[in-house]
């Protein structure tokens, strides 16, 4: 039913990641209206309480705004979205470094490899 969730992380957090991912990617644009809590819950097949928590946390993170009687909207604050993008980048790099160090690779070795790869893909 719905999305395949990872086993080791609370579902509401995975939904926050999903929505913030859509915002960073631009699938959800600044100022765009989100579906109602219940519609979105039905769409992804999760409990409406879980979705309520997702919306509340997104609002607390100032990633969305709730307009009375109208629903939730993606923030139009480009600075906040840029921050979000940086936070996500930071998270990715941190977990990458952790994985790499756990296997005993050196940072310079990985950096060199990344540059070689980057050269190929760009």
């Amino acid at each position, binding site marked *: *039913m719905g999305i395949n*969730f990872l086993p080791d992380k609370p579902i509401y957090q995975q939904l926050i990641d999903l929505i913030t991912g859509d915002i960073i990617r631009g699938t959800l644009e600044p100022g765009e209206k989100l579906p109602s809590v*219940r519609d979105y819950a039905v769409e992804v097949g999760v*409990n409406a309480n*879980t979705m309520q928590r997702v919306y509340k946390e997104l609002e607390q993170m100032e990633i969305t705004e709730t307009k009375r009687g109208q629903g939730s909207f993606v923030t139009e604050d480009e600075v906040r979205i840029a921050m979000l993008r940086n936070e996500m980048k930071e998270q990715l790099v941190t977990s990458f470094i952790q994985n790499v160090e756990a296997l005993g690779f050196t940072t310079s070795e990985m950096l060199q490899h990344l540059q070689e790869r980057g050269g190929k893909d760009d």
Partner: protein
Amino acid sequence: MIELRNITKKYGRRKALEGLTLSLPQGKIIGLVGENGSGKTTLLKLISGLVAPDSGSAMLNGSHITRRVATTIAYMPDADLFYPYFTVNQLIEFYESQFTDFNPMKAKEITQFLNLSLDSKIKHLSKGNRGRVKIAVTLGREADYYLLDEPFSGLDPMVRDDIAKGMIRFTDSARQTILMSTHEIKEVEPLLDEIVVLRGGRIIAHEAVDEIRDTYGKDATSWMVSLFREGS
């Protein structure tokens, strides 16, 4: 609020429930899991007032649960119970005559959401569509508690998905509580706020789904497997 305290229920000499204590707040979706014969159905029937405890107390908002008190509790049994010669529409009329909290408009809206035709005879429906009809008339009641015995069992993925969506769409998550027994934990987990695990008529665990993932770093299925390994 439903409060069960130190409930024991025996069938002959066999204890179906033993020393069971459980609170069910309003506004939660709760999964009831456990092996066959662990007491799930007995527990659901007891809360619906269909079975009386041998000892202990079962209270709804401060009153002892009886059939009369249970008018705000909608119980959906595992078995097919419909009069097969009814049409879906006749079944809705029948429910309206039986339950004061039944809302025929809502039931019809649910049948529409689930793509059921009101004129179909129950006996001509597929098993999947009978499952859909059952959930439609159950959720058609404006109950405080919905007790669902195996709502997904034996149904194909499309039907299970429809039923899950119906539950989210047609219950008020702030006010109404669903308690459902199930073996499909992996599939049902995203729907749940809490999980109650029964074993041999006793509750061996009762946790919030988010807490399980936060505390143990695993999903409900793996958590349950490890719970049973430790216990045995």
